[in-house]
């Protein structure tokens, strides 16, 4: 009677021990390509196992690999456990399957939060062209405010005059900075009479 409990217990312990080391003694990489990962906070798991805190990359895009290796024929299932604070969401594609060889086909796409960029315009009498890098906006005569294309959180921005209006000179104040967690609406464009 006792013996059989012991035996069951031993079997259970054995099974637990085996499952605990199951993922670690492999020789295959588990990873893929990620984008939108510009700061720390992304945590991935495989089969609900230990946390993999993904390091951000310059530009937010590049390859990633779990620190633990897996073995041939292992089933894997990658999920997002936590996201960086500056993203709307992170999606996993091709996140589960069975390993035949190194797995490099998992795609993690994080969509960055974006916020408005603009502000008041005063005394503009003919059209003015402003830019934020490649984003070019023509502000019509008489406009009292302007808006650029929305900018990802934590991204730099800079609004500058590309083409002055005829007969006027406009200046931009508060034109450059880093996008925070809310809209920027204090970029002021002031034009001479």
């Amino acid at each position, binding site marked *: 009677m006792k013996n059989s409990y012991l035996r069951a217990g031993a079997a259970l312990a054995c099974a637990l021990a085996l499952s605990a080391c199951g993922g670690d003694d492999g020789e295959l990489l588990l990873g893929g390509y990620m984008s939108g990962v510009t700061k720390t906070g992304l945590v991935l798991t495989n089969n609900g196992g230990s946390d993999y805190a993904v390091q951000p990359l310059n530009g937010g895009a590049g390859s990633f690999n779990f620190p633990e290796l897996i073995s041939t024929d292992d089933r894997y299932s990658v999920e997002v456990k936590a996201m960086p604070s500056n993203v709307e969401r992170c999606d996993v594609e091709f996140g589960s399957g069975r390993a035949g060889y190194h797995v490099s086909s998992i795609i993690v796409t994080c969509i960055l939060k974006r916020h408005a960029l603009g502000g008041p315009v005063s005394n503009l009498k003919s059209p003015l062209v402003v*830019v934020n890098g*490649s*984003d*070019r906006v023509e502000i019509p005569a008489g406009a009292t405010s302007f808006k650029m294309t929305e900018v990802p959180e934590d*991204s730099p921005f*800079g609004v500058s005059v590309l083409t002055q209006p005829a007969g006027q000179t406009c200046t931009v104040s508060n034109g450059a900075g880093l996008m925070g967690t809310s809209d920027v609406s204090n970029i002021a464009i002031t034009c001479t009479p």
Partner: protein
Amino acid sequence: MKQSLIRPALVLALAATLSACGGSDDDNYTVKGTVSGIVYPGAVLTTNGMDLPLGVPATPGGTVSFEFPNKLKYGDEYDVQFKSYPANQSQCGSLANTIANNKDTAGRLADINITLACDVDAYALNGTITGLTVDGLVLANGSNTGTLTIGKETTTTPKPYTFTMPVVQFGVSYNVVVVTQPAGLTCSVANGTGVMGAANVTNVAVTCVPN
């Protein structure tokens, strides 16, 4: 007697078979494919003595299909090249040629389908810095390419002290701005805003003065 009839019949059958595979009315292979990324006019493709001008797609930068007018025979070699590039797109094909089947023998594949790509030429966005006596200056080209942190000028810094922003494509606007001022200094940018032309920009000037 019987034998002599069989022999010509065989020869005839053989000739018929041969003409079926290599014959002159078997011009069955159309050299065709797609080019992506064309933004400017001027592209001309060429192969087997044919020239084929390509237009700009309705959505510039989208994909255009092409098909050379004369079909090729089985076994003809083709090698599709740009005879002229679209304006401001001298990188056409160079990347795609390494992966595309632009050069082959007609009939080796059931269908000839060539994929080529064009990119708009990009030019440098560089400049000089003066008066940067402390670390902490951060520059950016709008929201396009992240930030560039620039260290202070030291005795070993080559003069003039230059910086290199990521390249900008022809026709695209840029503006170099100060995102973070170094402690105790105010840096301003001259010649920092423009639209990239067909030459490197090297005259962006950042000048830092003590507050």
